[in-house]
């Protein structure tokens, strides 16, 4: 089954490659991201939530390592793109976004939404591939929330975003200083989450089945394949791989992110029923996952990225024997998933990105907006944690 899925992925690659080499490249990146997210169950929502809910830092440690790896890589790329920081030029595709109330509010709503829905946008995409029905509902909510944010975008633009500053650390303290400050801040967060974990008590390491000493080369290879395709990946290597993939994608074209693409789908669907939000002010000039007006086209390189993530997770889950249709029995879960999705969609719309675009690609862009989004994301996740404990 898994082999058939991978064979199908190769067929899509060849068809996409014939149409546009950008399509096939983004398809491969999508597959890789989806595969790693599923194999490590790399969930940004739980990275934040589990600190508050159970004093557990597993996913947060992976996230911090991924951010550190990506920061070094992005820092090197950006120092080539903008060697003279005193000129006030911005790196062309890095996620240095307008910073303001919309950043904080977007982070807050997104943080609440991801905990309510049990996964952020990337988390919902990989769980869709694993067969979680609630994640499909959450994704529909995200599409709805993005559309609502598109209706209010021009209002936000006029009163706030147009004049909001884009703060890029290398302008203030140079490339080495900006990277150093970022890495130190990540280390600071690491110490903080470890101290929370130690206060919470025992942490049981993942249960592992005992493996006998491999007796031959083929035995050894089988065991390596088992670790890669069947056993859950430890979170630290997964974080490092995701950070590294993000650097590769940034080097090839732009940082990892996809809510802009998902907004293109929402706006495109709305325009089918003549309910499109109309022209969106300023979006052409902004990097990151800013809303994308419908262009009337179906294919786009980013479509291959998002579909690749979904398919990569699906194939990974099949290979690990973890694919299963999971249907929630309690009606309230559908409401939670949909409502959480709408909050995430709206938050990602005004903050110009989700946990990926506005955080995982923004902090490595050495941009202050990534830190502000992250702080409010944590606050939102804390609020969300209070809410889910009151929902049976």
């Amino acid at each position, binding site marked *: 089954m898994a082999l058939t899925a991978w064979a199908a992925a190769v067929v899509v690659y060849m068809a996409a490659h014939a149409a546009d080499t950008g399509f096939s490249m983004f398809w491969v990146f999508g597959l890789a991201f989806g595969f790693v997210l599923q194999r490590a*169950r790399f*969930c940004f*929502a*739980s990275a934040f*939530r*589990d600190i508050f*809910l*159970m004093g*557990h830092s*597993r996913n947060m440690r992976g996230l911090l390592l991924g951010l550190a790896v990506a920061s070094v890589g992005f820092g090197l790329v950006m120092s080539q793109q903008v060697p003279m920081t005193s000129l006030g030029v911005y790196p062309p595709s890095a996620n240095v976004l307008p910073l303001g109330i919309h950043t904080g509010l977007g982070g807050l709503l997104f943080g609440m939404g991801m905990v309510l*829905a*049990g*996964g952020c946008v990337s988390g919902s995409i990989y769980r869709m591939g694993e067969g*979680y029905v*609630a*994640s499909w509902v959450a994704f529909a909510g995200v599409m709805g929330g993005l559309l609502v944010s598109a209706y209010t975008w021009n209002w936000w633009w006029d009163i706030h975003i147009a004049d909001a500053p884009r703060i890029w650390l290398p302008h203030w303290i140079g490339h080495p200083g900006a990277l150093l400050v970022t890495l130190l801040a990540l280390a600071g967060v690491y110490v903080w989450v470890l101290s929370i974990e130690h206060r*919470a*008590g*025992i*942490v*049981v390491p*993942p*249960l592992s089945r005992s493996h006998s000493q491999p007796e031959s080369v083929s035995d050894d290879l089988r065991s390596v394949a088992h670790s890669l395709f069947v056993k*859950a990946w430890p979170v630290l290597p997964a974080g490092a791989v995701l950070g590294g993939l993000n650097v590769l994608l940034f080097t090839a074209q732009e940082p990892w992110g996809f809510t802009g693409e998902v907004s293109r789908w929402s706006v495109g669907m709305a325009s089918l029923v003549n309910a499109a939000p109309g022209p969106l002010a300023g979006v052409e000039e902004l990097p990151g996952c800013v809303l994308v007006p419908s262009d009337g086209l179906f294919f786009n390189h980013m479509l291959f990225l998002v579909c690749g993530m979904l398919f990569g997770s699906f194939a990974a889950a099949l290979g690990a*024997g*973890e*694919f*299963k249709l*999971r*249907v*929630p*029995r*309690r009606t309230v*879960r559908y409401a*939670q*998933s949909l409502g959480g999705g709408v909050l995430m969609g709206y938050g990602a719309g005004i903050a110009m990105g989700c946990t990926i675009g506005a955080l995982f690609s923004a902090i490595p862009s050495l941009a202050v907006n990534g830190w502000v989004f992250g702080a409010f994301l944590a606050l939102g996740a804390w609020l969300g944690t209070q809410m*889910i*404990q009151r929902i049976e």
Partner: protein
Amino acid sequence: MTKTPEASVKTLDVRGEICPYPMMRTVSALKKLQGDERALEVVTDHPPALQTIPTQAARLGFRTEVEEKGASEWLIVLTRIEGEDGA
């Protein structure tokens, strides 16, 4: 897997649940166990629960054993560690 002498070990079925309810509902079921109930069985199809439940159970004084039931389903047996009151 040790067989519990009691005829009825409570079973909690959290299949289909979204994250993190498999863990949360297990914790609240463990807290509701009576003093003479030594174990709880949890049926789940949520792989992350295999990492979160053992920690939360240990904090409440329970040992975890996981049995794979196939088709992405697991039976988690939580047994009270003797001589401990639970935290």
